[in-house]
Structures are given as structure tokens and as C-alpha cells.
């Protein structure tokens, strides 16, 4: 009897992914990316937008749709452990500013390309990869994959362009800066302050 109820409980757990680790559905993840695409094109691409306004809106979308805490932790990798709370917070803030400064302007040059979501797959670790394709004006097609995780709501934890992962690339970049700065996270923060021109 006891055994049967255990099995029933296990079966129940398996049939409700939300209990077993909050795995989002692939359909939800696709919808999430579709809506982000619409939001980005409608709010970021206007030619009459001031640069500041574009950056503010981009930052808003970044914060609402991306798992910035998770990405920061992944990017700092083994240095996350040794970083103090202040350093972690500083890194997150400065890293976000770096992304805003580097990518918000891209939307000013928007030439009508659309990405179309072409599929989604559940990964073994509970995350979902949403595949999309962008048609360039020169006829090239670019593969853009989105890694989605459920961290109190769906959030993007990585962007993969033609097999190149954003967070993996930044992990290498940041790791090299810290390494050349004598293994100190402070040296990374200095480099970020200098690059972004902010505190």
C-alpha cells in the first residue's frame, strides 16, 4: 500500500513538470521569443528615437527578458566564488551597461529584417532552446538560437548566433581580463568602468 502510494506520488511528480523542476513548455518559450521580437522591433527601431531613449528602452527589455543575474554568474564562472557581494553587484551593473552600449545602436540601423521562430527543443537540463532564422538583405540566412529558462518566469539565459554563444564568449573575454589583471575581479571592474565610461 505504502509502495503504491509512493509510485502514485512519483507518477504525479513526473506528469507535472512544474513540480519536478519547473520546466517551461516549448510552446510557451516560442511565444515568449515571438513577443520579444515584436516588442523589440516596435519600441527600438524608430528612426526618430534619440540615442538615450533607445538605450533606456533597450535596457528595459534586457532587464525584463534576460536572466541577467544568471548570465553574470555564468560569465564570471570560477571568479564568482571569490568575488565579494559588492563586486558581484558592480559587475552585473557594468556588464549590463556594456551590453546596452554595444548593442542598442544596432537597432538604429534596422533594415526591416525579421526573425522567424522555426522550432524549439527541450534540453536535458530543463532549459529550452528556441530556434529562429534571420534573412539578411544580401540573401544570407543567420541562425539565432535562444536559450530559455524558467527563473520565476521565462527568461533568456543565452543567445547563440551561428553556434556562437554570447555568454560563453563573454566568459572567455572576462576570464582573460581577470587573468591578466593578476586574478583580481577588481581589475575586471576597472576595465569595465573604462570601457563603458561609467562608474
Amino acid at each position, binding site marked *: 500500500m505504502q509502495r503504491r502510494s509512493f509510485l502514485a506520488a512519483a507518477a504525479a511528480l513526473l506528469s507535472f513538470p512544474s513540480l519536478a523542476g519547473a520546466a517551461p513548455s516549448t510552446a510557451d518559450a516560442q511565444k515568449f521569443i515571438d513577443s520579444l521580437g515584436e516588442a523589440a522591433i516596435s519600441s527600438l527601431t524608430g528612426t526618430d528615437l534619440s540615442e538615450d531613449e533607445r538605450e533606456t528602452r533597450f535596457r528595459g527589455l534586457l532587464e525584463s527578458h534576460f536572466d541577467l543575474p544568471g548570465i553574470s554568474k555564468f560569465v564570471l564562472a570560477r571568479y564568482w566564488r571569490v568575488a565579494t557581494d559588492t563586486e558581484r553587484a558592480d559587475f552585473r551593473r557594468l556588464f549590463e551597461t556594456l551590453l546596452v552600449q554595444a548593442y542598442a545602436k544596432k537597432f538604429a540601423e534596422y533594415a526591416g529584417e525579421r526573425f522567424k521562430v522555426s522550432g524549439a527543443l*527541450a534540453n536535458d537540463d530543463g532549459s529550452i532552446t528556441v530556434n529562429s532564422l534571420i534573412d539578411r538583405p544580401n540573401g544570407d540566412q543567420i541562425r539565432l538560437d535562444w536559450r530559455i529558462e524558467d527563473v520565476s518566469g521565462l527568461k533568456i539565459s543565452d543567445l547563440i548566433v*551561428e*553556434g556562437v554563444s554570447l555568454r560563453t564568449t563573454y566568459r572567455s573575454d572576462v576570464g582573460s581580463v581577470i587573468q591578466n589583471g593578476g586574478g583580481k575581479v577588481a581589475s575586471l571592474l576597472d576595465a569595465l568602468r573604462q570601457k563603458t565610461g561609467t562608474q
Partner: protein
Amino acid sequence: MRASYFNLLRVPAAALLTAAVLLAGCATPPKDPDELAIYKENNDPLEPMNRYIFEVNNGLDELLIKPLASWYNLMLPDRVEQGVHNVLTNLNSPVIFANDAMQGNGPRAKITAERFAINSTLGVAGIFDVAANWWGIKHHDEDFGQTMAVWGVGEGPYLVLPVIGPSNPRDAVGYGVDSVMDPWGWVLPSHLQWINYTRTGIQGIDLRSRNLETLDQIKKGSLDFYATMRSLYRQHRNDEIKNYDEKSNNVFTPSASVDDPSVKKPQLSQTN
């Protein structure tokens, strides 16, 4: 044999390499376990020399290659640039075909052969990509570095080559083998070899002009441009080797991802 920047610069490059190795030597592996883990992950024991060549390449790019590519981009109408690109791509077909075949990939070899036959004739010596536009037979690239990877040859340590840029021993050897395999060099008599040299030059300008914005964007977004390029190169090569099949991307049946082995799962590259 196909000419390349590399050939033109072989002597100075060899001297430079030797000097740089002697001067800079190898990076010493760190003692700290965390640092050692990163050192291994970077797989870049020649980092001091590589960084030096990277800087020289960047200088050359800023002084010569980038201005040429920008000029090329500005002066020629997009349609002409596309035509030039198509011709170059078409001329590369024999090498791609040979590599498709050596990888044992019949379907892709067939695609390359069909594209070459169609575009060389209907596409007027390759100017128009009729195969892709009319029949949807799309271009794919392949090279001997990828072929060796398929055969199980490891990439080896990271290497920055003079002028050519990011590489590794496997891809550097692959580049050489592709150059030897290229039939246009055999076909042309020696007094016409300049045509092939010109082709290599235009190939470089074409490649650079198609990446003007991308490289600027990468520079803008990175702290350590060298480390970023190293990571990008590796990830990109791994992606190319996997021969991603576009069709599998379009197949969307939730169960297929688990049960159907023909549906390739896009993998997140976690290696550096």
C-alpha cells in the same frame, strides 16, 4: 597551387614567427589550480606570440585591408559585389566537393556538384546563384580542416597566423591542403598564375568587406578583443564541423527531439 597571402609573405612570416617564438617563448603554466584550469581551457600555450601576431595583423588590417574593403564596399553597387562573391564561391566548388566526398557525405557532395553545374552554366560563370534562387539548392562551405575534424583529428593549440588570423595546427594544415587541392592553379599556365593571385586577393577583400560591421561590433562589445576572437573562432569552427542541417531546425515535433535520432539537437557549445 593556389596562391595566398600566406605564400606572398612566407619568408618574412617565417622569420617573424621564429623571432617571436625566441623572444616571447611560451606562456608558463600557472601554479594556482583555478588559474591552471583557465590556462587549459584557453588551450593557448603560445599566447604571448599569438597576441603579438594578432596585434600585427590588426595593424595591417587598419592600415590596408579594412580601408581597401571599405572602399570596395562604397565604390561598387551591392549587386556587383554579390556577383563577385558568387563567382568566388563557385570557383571554390571543386575544393568543397572534394571535402564533402572525403567526409563521406554523399548528399552534400551531390549538392555541391549540382550547384557548380547549374551556376557555371545558367548562372553565367557563377555570377548568379541560380541554384539557390530557382531551385533552393543552397551553398554550404567545407574545407580540409573540417574534414580532418570529421576524421577525428584534434584541433591542437590555438594559433594566430600572420595575415590569415585565428587558426590552429589542424586548420592551418587544412588551409595548405585546400590550396594544393584547388584545381584552378593546375589549369593555369605559369605565366597566367597572376590570375590566381588576384583571385586570392579579391577573396580577402570580399571576406573583409562582408564583415566590416560584424568585426566593429565585436570590438565594441568586448574587453579583450584577442580573447573574444579566440573564443569566437573555436565556437564557430565547432559549429561548422557539425554540418548543421537547416531542415532539422524546421522540424518541430516535440517528441521528435527525444525519440528521433535524425533530428539533431542544436548543442550549446560549452567549450571555452
